[in-house]
């Protein structure tokens, strides 16, 4: 799939202003807005181990430092280690009947590292009870963590105390006269040292780390002996075990596998989920998946004539309708200086041709919810609508530069709904769609091939990348809110990287 979606030549502008390929975008069905991973809330649903597919509660994960207790990764190549069986001779060699004892060791299928390489003895149980490496600095770390925890506690207590003090009736005169407490103390002959209450109940401070001025001399063998690179660990191998940072390969020990998370993504404006995975770690399905790929027509470049500066050339793009509803696509000129707000407000505008069912009240709510987005005012100024946006983010300006004019077609075209059975239908296309032959070159089921004329700007340098952009307006059929499907005009800014400019003949 990545060879189709991978080269991101066609990018859609997310509502937050970032440009992403359609496979990276989400579509909130409640706000009618594109969302990307940058402008949604990420929430961790569950922690699990990718090897043993075991769900681990978040409290347990925290205790285990987000690592699986049973699974290990290879310290040499970071792949997962598997347990292998080695049979050891019978327990007592005289008795021929005694079965050979099974022993287990860890082995990497990828780089053939095994726990025997570093002299870890084989274990008699499958799950191991592999020896845990004690961190040499664990005591010191614990000391420091305890101290900082105590400081946090002391500061909190101090804060509480200060709050209580402020409520007291007596004003301190030092505040008014400008005489500081320290100066006052000095005047009345008290020791100037004033121990701050925080410092007073300061916890026991651990021994401070001492800086060494004398460094060991460079060992001579570094200069005299040739380096055997196979005995020295790579940077990746060292950083995999930050507490030990082994220098030589004989100190590489198996590392507990890091846990993975399942996360759900939530639209920040309406707080609806745009993506929610199934809870079961072994399942790769979703409960909610509002990917833009399923809602927004997909655009792909089919062919483009050689691009020459100032010369018009033909561009053929393919439009695919992924939805179960017919849609009409129109083109609008992309104006980069235009305020993004207009785009937002346009979206909320309800086309009333077909949705007579929408009551007036609902409409008001719709416009209310859209208001904070379009005007980006503090939401407190507006009377609270039913669904208050949790966060209002002003969309950033689109950074993509457009250096190619596009002749925006005035006519629109229809895309029929997606029909999975059409692939197996040999009867040919029997659509009766009146197409503008200048615009639509060819169509098949829910796809249409559209001809566009583009002209790279005449002042472009050779081999510079040519980018064109337009606004695609398509009719989005909403089936969520009410029984009757409602139709909206949805606009998306689309940017196409057409390739490099070639010389003029």
């Amino acid at each position: 799939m990545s060879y189709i979606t991978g080269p991101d030549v066609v990018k859609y502008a997310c509502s937050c202003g970032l440009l992403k390929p359609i496979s990276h975008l989400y579509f909130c069905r409640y706000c009618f807005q594109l969302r990307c991973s940058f402008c949604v809330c990420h929430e961790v649903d569950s922690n699990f181990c990718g090897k043993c597919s075991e769900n681990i509660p978040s409290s347990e994960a925290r205790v285990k430092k987000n690592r699986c207790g049973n699974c290990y990764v290879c310290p040499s190549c970071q792949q997962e280690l598997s347990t292998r069986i080695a049979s050891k001779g019978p327990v007592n060699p005289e008795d021929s009947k005694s079965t050979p004892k099974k022993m287990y060791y860890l082995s990497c299928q990828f780089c053939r590292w095994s726990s025997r390489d570093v002299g870890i003895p084989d274990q008699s149980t499958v799950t191991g009870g592999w020896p845990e490496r004690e961190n040499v600095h664990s005591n010191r770390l614990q000391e420091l963590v305890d101290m900082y925890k105590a400081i946090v506690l002391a500061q909190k207590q101090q804060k509480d105390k200060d709050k209580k003090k402020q409520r007291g009736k007596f004003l301190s005169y030092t505040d008014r006269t400008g005489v500081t407490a320290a100066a006052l103390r000095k005047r009345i002959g008290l020791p100037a040292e004033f121990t701050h209450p925080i410092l007073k109940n300061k916890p026991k401070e651990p021994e401070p780390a001492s800086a060494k001025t004398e460094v060991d001399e460079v060992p001579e063998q570094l200069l005299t002996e040739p380096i055997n690179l196979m005995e020295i660990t790579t940077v990746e191998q060292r950083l995999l075990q930050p507490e030990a940072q082994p220098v030589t390969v004989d100190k590489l020990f198996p590392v507990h596998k890091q846990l993975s998370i399942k996360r759900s993504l939530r639209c920040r404006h309406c707080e609806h989920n745009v993506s929610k995975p199934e809870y079961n770690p072994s399942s790769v399905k979703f409960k909610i998946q509002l990917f833009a790929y399923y809602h927004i027509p997909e655009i792909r470049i089919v062919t483009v004539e050689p691009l020459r500066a100032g010369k018009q050339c033909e561009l053929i793009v393919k439009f695919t309708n992924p939805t179960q509803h017919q849609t009409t696509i129109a083109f609008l000129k992309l104006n980069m200086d235009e305020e993004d707000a207009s785009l937002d407000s346009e979206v909320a505008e309800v086309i009333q041709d077909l949705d007579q069912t929408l009551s007036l009240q609902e409409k008001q709510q719709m416009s209310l919810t859209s208001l904070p987005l379009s005007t980006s005012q503090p939401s407190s100024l507006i009377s609270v609508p039913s669904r208050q946006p949790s966060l209002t983010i002003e969309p950033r300006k689109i950074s993509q530069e457009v250096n190619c004019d596009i002749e925006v077609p005035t006519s629109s075209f229809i895309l029929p709904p997606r029909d999975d059975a059409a692939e197996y239908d040999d009867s040919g296309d029997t659509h009766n769609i009146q197409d503008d032959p200048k615009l639509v070159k060819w169509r098949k089921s829910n796809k249409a091939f559209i001809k566009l004329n583009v002209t790279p700007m005449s002042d472009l340098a050779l081999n510079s990348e040519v980018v064109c952009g337009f606004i695609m307006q398509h009719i989005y059929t909403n089936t969520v809110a009410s029984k009757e499907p409602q139709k909206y005009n949805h606009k998306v800014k689309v940017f196409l990287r057409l390739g490099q400019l070639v010389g003029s003949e």
Partner: protein
Amino acid sequence: MSRNNIKILPGALVCEESKLRGDITIGSGTIVHPSATIIAEAGPIIIGECCLIEEQVKIIHRLPFDQQNKENTTPVLIIGSHNVFEVDCTVESPKIGNNNVFESKCYVGNKVTVSNGCIIGAGCRVTEEQILKENIIIFGSKCQMREGLDRPGLQTLQMETLSKMIPNYHHIKKPNKKV
């Protein structure tokens, strides 16, 4: 040299569909899958016992350009015993010892001498002139090298199964040499 001179020792399993060109000797117990290619271009190839040569494998005896003009001797490519050539690997090495594993889609150039117990990982490209020491393991996209503890395990079980299965589905070249 253009004439094919294939010597198959008894016990070897060479499929009819394998492509063998030049002077090749295949030792007993060796299995050559269909669509494996062995080309003895620069001189004869002698393959030892119990080697496993899987599909799409290319073993080519080809000299580096700077050595091609030396006419005095014809070099012989000797491949030791118990070597495993996995699917779609290309090996042009001038000398191969015993117990080596060439994993899938790896490439070993014609300046690389392979000793014993080496593993060339999947997809690794080794072309620089060198002699691989014993039990060297090359792995990963950066062709990282490390030294193994001992030789890789033998594929006896797999070979046994194959020697039973292959004759049921493929035409086998008859051994034409006596021990």
